[in-house]
């Protein structure tokens, strides 16, 4: 039960983080379309790091 | 976490490490080395081709500049030659003119001198002629005077007229 609540919290946190990354990346691309490739790569890396964090927490709580 | 550790199979871990090492070694020997080598040689080839093309372009430009220079020089030379020729022509014409003038004036002078001498000769002859005539006239006049004064005058007139006609 508590595991599930914890998992929910992790997902909320991760979702907010991913949303921020994605949103800011979109803004960045809209502002500077020529830097889209670099922004995308950086976005994916940061997303992956965040994902690792969230998965780590999920696994630890399991 | 517990379930994860429970799922962890040391045997599979070991097999994976062995397989991955063997795979990396094999791929390195049979695939990655030749592929990356070929790719970098190809890229170097392309780079070299681009460089030489750039170089050729530069040389071409130099050559064109040289050509332009040569052309300009040739043009200048032609100009100079033409100018020289023109000058030469002018001097020649001038020389010819002055020479012709000198010659002409010399000829004129000669002609004048000849005319003068002819004139003098003619005058001298005329003078002697006139003197002779005068003597003749005077003789005739003197002869006529003795007979008739009117006739003398008529005679002088006719003689004069004769002399003029002469």
């Amino acid at each position: 039960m508590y595991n599930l609540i914890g998992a929910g919290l992790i997902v909320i946190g991760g979702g907010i983080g991913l949303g921020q990354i994605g949103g800011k990346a979109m803004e960045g691309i809209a502002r500077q379309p020529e830097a889209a490739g670099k922004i995308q790569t950086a976005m994916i890396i940061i997303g992956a790091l965040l994902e690792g964090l969230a998965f780590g927490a999920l696994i630890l709580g399991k | 976490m517990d379930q994860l550790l429970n799922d962890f199979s040391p045997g599979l871990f070991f097999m994976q490490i062995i397989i991955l090492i063997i795979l990396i070694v094999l791929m390195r020997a049979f695939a990655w080395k030749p592929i990356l080598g070929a790719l970098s040689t190809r890229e170097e080839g392309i780079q070299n081709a681009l460089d030489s093309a750039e170089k050729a372009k530069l040389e071409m430009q130099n050559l064109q500049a040289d050509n332009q220079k040569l052309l300009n020089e040739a043009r200048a030379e032609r100009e100079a030659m033409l100018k020289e020729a023109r000058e030469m022509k002018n001097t020649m014409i001038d020389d010819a003119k002055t020479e012709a003038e000198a010659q002409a004036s010399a000829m004129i002078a000669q002609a004048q001198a000849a005319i003068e001498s002819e004139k003098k000769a003619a005058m001298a002859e005329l003078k002697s002629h006139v003197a002779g005539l005068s003597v003749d006239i005077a003789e005739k006049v003197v002869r006529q005077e003795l007979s008739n004064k009117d006739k003398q005058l008529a005679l002088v007139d006719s003689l004069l007229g004769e002399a003029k006609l002469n």
Partner: protein
Amino acid sequence: MVIAKKSIKLLAVLFMVFGMFTVQAENDTPQHGDVSGNQVDTPEEINSYIQHHLKDSHDFHFYTDNSTGKHYSFPLPVIVWTSEGLKTFMSSAFHHDDAGHEIVDAGGVKLTKIHSKIYELNPGETEVAFDEEHHATNASKVIDFSITKSVFGMLVTGLIMLLGFGALARGYKKGNTIPKGVGRVLEPLVLYVRDEIARPNIGEKKYKKFMSFLLTVFFFIWILNLLGLTPLGFNVTGQIAVTAAMAIFTVVIYMFSGTKDFWAHTLWMPGVPVILRPILAVIELVGFVIIKPFSLLIRLFANITAGHFVVMSLVALMITMKASFGPAASTGMSLILTLFIMVIELLVAFLQAFIFTMLSSLFIGMAVEEHDDHH
């Protein structure tokens, strides 16, 4: 880049077609039962079927015909290290049993298999007993070097890579500067890994040393991920032992190729008050030795496992929803949803390979970086 994108598109289309087959094939597998041959139609059975699939197995099982009780599968060799030494036999000796009923006598040791794990029974025992925490009380686990389905998958992948890239390499050796056939697809991918992953992250001077590892790992993960989406039912990159081995490779590589600068900055950070330096050193060391590889291995494992779980759950939707929507509607819904998730899984298959390689090269880049500015 345009060529790379094109060939990736082509590959995606190819595997999408393949993926559709997967859906259809897996559509009927749950109905035909799990390894023990029972009909799968209650949620509990579906769940246990999925759990079984996510685990490694000792034989290559396609499906079971329930009407005749026939198993369509082929056995794989079992190699185990027991208290009596190394024992080998074919997995057919277990007769498709996965619940510890069949006991194999392999030269003096009694072996039995429960949930894809082989246990060595203590002398005189006939069945494995478990305590409350799921630890066996009268049997011990053996170290299992078997050619399991995952190992088989890895060998197949290795073979595919050797054949494909070997052909490309031979093409170059023959003097073709432009590759032909399958090489046309593979060359842009190699270039992609080199120019988009290794070069910018490791640096122009040093990337060459690590190319073999990065390329091998990239294609290894990608091909295994894609194999996992086929009806063959591999779940290799969803095995935590496999991802752990690869993460440890990365750690060993960046630890051993770390420059003096890297170690100076890790262990005795310049420009920071001396009191803080040991604390920072501990944080950095924990980061490099534990957190970074842990996040690498967990990410790949969790993504692939979750992907398989979602796909199989959606396939199972047609059984669980049959009662409320009728067979046609539940099948249609399941097909459409599975197709949708399958497309995403194809992207994830590539993305996870890309991210693993990308982060590996990023960490290697941190380790080999030369600091020009001394603070």
